[in-house]
């Protein structure tokens, strides 16, 4: 098995989404291949928010898009309930996509500048919803209201008449209007000002409770991810390092990469000592030619011989905390847990 193990997966009857051995490769010139996502597995329960963190280029967006089969993954399966999306025909997948919505980082460019807000939010309905304009508007106005935008004021206005935060709320309304099963939020607050971020995060929490939303929340800001997520998965160079209930992950990181991330966060407290040691910038390993064994080994202070030869598999730390590392920072089950599906 080329993946990083599945000890962290939960029984399939408890989960809404189950991704197994997901691999996405992009051919680039000269016969090279970008190994963007390499055999990762994860799952999400209904009503849960899964945070996906990791540095730029580690494959977060590719993972999010692969769930929607955009583009179709190189290999692996994506089960929504019992249905493997990877095996659906294109037309069936198009239908299914109404159950899966995506919210992007840049709210302004993801909204069509030429259409009015009322039309933009109604877009998904035009294809799949009620044909009656009045019924469409009823749904649209409920959603605009839910994201704190006055429907009657916004209806005929265009995106450029709104701030970045308001545009993001409009794109959230558009994602909600089809009442999707799962929403993939790709860095939804990263482009927003700090003063606006909190409004959006609070709002997402409330919508989640109100509509029972299931979310994948992709971000590189660890504090933001912790705030919104029930469970967090840490990715590095196309691989899954650690999956855990959020509070546990941040208080007891077991993977050296998670620890590095946590100790690198600048804290808004001048009394906290900073590790000021200078390091040489070796550059990050390339996804075209990733390191053998554990992909983090070129930067890991604990790496040894086995790390370059054998890829670490997911192992259990506690019931809801799993790590893929040969030398984890806390004790793990030595026996690998395999789950029958």
């Amino acid at each position, binding site marked *: 098995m080329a993946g990083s193990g599945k000890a962290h997966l939960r029984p399939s009857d408890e989960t809404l989404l189950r991704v197994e051995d997901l691999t996405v490769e992009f051919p680039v010139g000269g016969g090279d291949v970008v190994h963007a996502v390499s055999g990762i597995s994860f799952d999400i329960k209904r009503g849960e928010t899964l945070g996906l963190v990791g540095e730029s280029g580690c494959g977060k967006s590719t993972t999010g898009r692969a769930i929607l089969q955009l583009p179709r993954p190189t290999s692996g399966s994506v089960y929504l309930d019992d249905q493997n999306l990877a095996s659906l025909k294109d037309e069936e997948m198009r239908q299914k996509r109404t159950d899966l919505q995506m919210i992007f980082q840049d709210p302004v460019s993801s909204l069509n500048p030429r259409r009015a807000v009322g039309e933009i939010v109604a877009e998904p309905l035009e294809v799949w919803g009620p044909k009656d304009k009045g019924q469409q508007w009823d749904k649209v106005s409920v959603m605009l209201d839910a994201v704190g935008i006055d429907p009657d004021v916004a209806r005929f206005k265009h995106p450029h008449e709104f701030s970045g935060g308001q545009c993001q709320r409009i794109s959230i309304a558009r994602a909600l209007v089809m009442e999707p099963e799962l929403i993939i939020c790709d860095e939804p607050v990263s482009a927003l000002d700090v003063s606006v971020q909190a409004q959006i995060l609070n709002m997402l929490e409330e919508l989640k409770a109100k509509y029972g939303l299931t979310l994948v929340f992709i971000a590189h800001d660890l504090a933001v991810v912790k705030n919104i997520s029930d469970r967090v998965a840490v990715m590095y160079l196309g691989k899954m390092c650690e999956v855990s209930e*959020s509070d546990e992950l941040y208080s007891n990181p077991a993977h050296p990469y998670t620890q590095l991330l946590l100790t690198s966060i600048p804290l808004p407290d001048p009394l906290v000592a900073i590790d000021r040691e200078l390091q040489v*910038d070796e550059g990050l390993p390339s996804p075209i030619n990733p390191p053998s064994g554990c992909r983090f080994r070129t930067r890991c202070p604990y790496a040894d011989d086995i790390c370059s030869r054998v890829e670490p598999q997911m192992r259990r730390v506690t019931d809801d905390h799993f790590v893929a590392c040969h030398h984890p920072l806390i004790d793990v089950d030595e026996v690998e847990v395999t789950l029958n599906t």
Partner: protein
Amino acid sequence: MPTAGADATRLTRSEKTEPLLVVEDLKTYFQTPNGLVKAVDGVTLSVERGKTLGVVGESGSGKTVLSRSIMRLNTAGNVITHGSVTYNGEDLLAKSPRQMRDIWGVEMAMVFQDPMTSLNPVVKVGRQMTEHIRHHLGVSKKDARDTAVELLRSVRIPEPEARFDNYPHEMSGGMRQRVCIAIALACGPKMLFADEPTTALDVTVQHQILNLLGQQQVDRFMTMIMVTHDLGVVAGRTDEIAVMYAGKVVEKAPTKQLFADMRHPYTEALLRSIPKIDDPKHTKLSAISGRPPDLINPPSGCAFSPRCPYAQPQCFTDTPPLGAAPTPGHQYACWFPVGSPEGKDAWDKNLEAKRPQTMAAAGLVNATEELAAGAVVGG
């Protein structure tokens, strides 16, 4: 190091005690078709030699325009600048563009947010460095190359001789920012502006770049202004912080003092609105109501008044001056400061009146109400 930085021991006594940079009532306005944008609106501050000043504030508050104005880099035709900028005893605003060219790089240098925009993508990084060095220091090709390689080494780029021949796209984002820092340091500037130098980078890389800047600053006894929207970045890395809102400095204090005893409601709101890594998951955030101010028609009185949880009638008509707090070096511009009896009364009164901004700050409303409050006050 082949390039000479300033040296604390060589300074005369008055140089040691006088601030290196003094900015007084600086105003930078832009003429636009929609009206006059008051991007920097009367900023007064000073930075002592060898110290780091952090400038924080939300997007559009004027941080970048302020630093570019000090360096005289605002060259657009629609700019109006007033006030005074005194650097090392000299009036910078009185200098000709020619005279400024002798100051850039040698006296003052800048590191920008996005290394890709300050590096030429089609020229090898080594050549970009040597051209800069030869232009300013007039040394031979060979000496410029040696200096450039040394600089690359000092910013901890491995195998600098080999990296010398890389194009920018052949380097990681962190390496490119190291190159930009190396170029900025090449002529041994006494003052370095870093405008969001790590915003585009991953946290682990950011940490290393901030360490590098800090160490270079100490080694070269540089004075630094670090611009960021991230209170986390400035907390552990600055001596003093200036908080900007709508083109004005609304609070300024030594860093520890600021965090221990912030007086301005905007500073407090900024700190409270960011998620903290130590808070448990799903902690409700204290949002700032409303929207950033319109710089063409700023709110009358205090610019923060439409969003402020403490605002009282006086705030909507009278602009609070930047006044001194009892603690040395601490200044703020507010009629009802946080932590004062007046501030507490103002807060209590607003809470009783159910002022939406105060209710939101106190976490007493749900998010939709919070947003509706924003719509009412912010338009």
